[in-house]
């Protein structure tokens, strides 16, 4: 006999007084998180809750996007994010197709403009794309009628990752207002960190960036400080004091070659998130990581598999959040 999952989770209660329709959502595409309002992010959370209910059913499927075509266009290899989107699409009844993008053509310096004609001819409703050049999805929006979802462009943005990170935090902590969030790692090259910085500050959290000064991008600290709720603390112990949320970023091993770090060994000594360092954060602090994790480099194995880690939940929430986003986007494509 099948049963429907007991609803003990308070975030799954439905509030009947919420309005029938809303004009909150203003995006035809999801390219970056820096122009999302707090209300829009809350709408995503709210819709994600409903999607989690769908995912709790034996048949994890609703026909909301029936008849829509979603095309994934990944110029950088990524199995996990791409699958997450494909599953999200299929759970909503849409057709998901992967257009094989040539990773080598990017290496040769060929522009993606050549692919645009094919995309348009395929009649996609939604295109999910990942590309190594910052700003690449913006060109696509000018030439295709579909809605574009940015699954990561260069250093610039990864809005769906940030939204699932924010949702994961929200599920444990409720409101993000006033929370202390610490981001540790290679912020300069991390699109996940940028999107999270905009998202966290919009939700009212206080963000601390912890990294070697050579990996801190311009305008975020020092004499040219531009963002009020973002502070810089290069010392990891001080940065973690009283933190509610700790996000560790992947360190790419090429950073040593480009002269930005003297050695990986030194990075580990100064910046690895260990149990001892994590103990300086609040006892119920969450540990997040966008993946894939370099265990033993930016984060110790003990922390990855420890009780405060919500890294696996991030992945699970990823499908629900992406379902919510696809649903909201499809609803904002007017005839």
């Amino acid at each position, binding site marked *: *006999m*099948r*049963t*429907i999952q007991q*609803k003990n989770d308070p975030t*799954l*209660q*439905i509030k*009947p*007084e*919420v*309005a*029938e*329709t*809303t*004009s*909150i*959502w203003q995006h035809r595409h999801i390219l970056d998180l820096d122009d999302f309002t707090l209300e829009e992010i809350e*709408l995503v959370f*709210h*819709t994600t*809750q*409903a999607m989690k*209910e*769908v995912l709790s*059913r034996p*048949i994890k*499927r*609703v*026909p*909301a996007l029936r008849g829509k075509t979603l095309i994934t266009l990944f110029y950088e290899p990524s199995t996990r994010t791409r699958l997450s989107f494909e599953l999200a699409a299929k759970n*909503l009844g849409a057709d998901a197709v992967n257009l094989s993008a040539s990773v080598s053509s990017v290496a040769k310096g060929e522009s993606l403009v050549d692919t645009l004609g094919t995309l348009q001819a395929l009649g996609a409703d939604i295109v999910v794309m990942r590309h190594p050049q910052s700003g690449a999805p913006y060109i696509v929006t000018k030439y295709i009628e579909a809605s574009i979802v940015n699954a990561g462009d260069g250093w610039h943005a990864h809005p769906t990752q940030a939204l699932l990170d924010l949702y994961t935090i929200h599920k444990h902590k409720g409101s993000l207002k006033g929370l202390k969030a610490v981001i540790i790692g290679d912020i300069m090259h991390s699109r996940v960190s940028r999107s999270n910085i905009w998202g966290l500050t919009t939700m009212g959290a206080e963000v601390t960036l912890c990294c070697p000064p050579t990996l801190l991008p311009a305008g975020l600290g020092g004499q040219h400080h531009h963002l009020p709720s973002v502070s810089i603390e290069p010392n990891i112990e001080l940065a973690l004091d009283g933190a509610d949320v700790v996000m560790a970023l992947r360190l790419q091993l090429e950073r040593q070659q480009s002269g930005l770090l003297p050695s990986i060994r030194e990075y580990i000594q100064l910046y690895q998130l260990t149990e001892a360092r994590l103990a300086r954060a609040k006892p119920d602090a969450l540990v997040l990581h966008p993946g894939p994790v370099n265990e033993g480099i930016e984060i110790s194995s003990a922390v990855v598999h420890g009780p405060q880690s919500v890294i696996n939940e991030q992945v699970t929430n990823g499908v629900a959040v992406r379902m919510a986003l696809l*649903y*909201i986007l*499809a*609803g*904002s*494509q*007017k*005839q």
Partner: protein
Amino acid sequence: MSRKIIMTQDDIRRTLARIAHEIMERNKVIERLILVGMHTRGVPLAKRLAANIEDFARLKIPVGALDISFYRDDLSSLDLQPVVKGTDIPADIDGKSIVLVDDVLYTGRSIRAAMDALIDLGRPQLIQLAVLIDRGHRELPIRADYAGKNIPSSRHEEIQVKLKETDGIDEVAIISMPVAKEGQ
């Protein structure tokens, strides 16, 4: 534009009491009954019906809430974003007698979506429909098993249902929109 009240608080109370009785008459095995209200106002109506049944039959009937957002066929033509409410049915629906509850029955498309949603959740033995108002103009072969009031209406009229739980007051009104004259 003119507004006329067609059901008062008392009218609503009496009508719901009558519908509750009808439901009990037609569903001899009350233990199999689940009332499922359709968001938004169908939910408090379902709760009231359950309370009425509980008063008479001394049996607590499960009440659920159904969100049909994911089953609509008009997603792209809406002016605004639909806000999903979430589906919450606190019991297994296999083999049960479901009574769908909504405030107004009009084209029938919402009910069609609701049936699709229920069937994705399980295999009920039967599904019946209870509405407070049936205003006609069906576009699909759907009918109410229990109707509070039949209000023939024109397409220029709007039936406005207000309930204490959602709007602070119990009343049903009919609002006439001005008709655009030819050539204007």
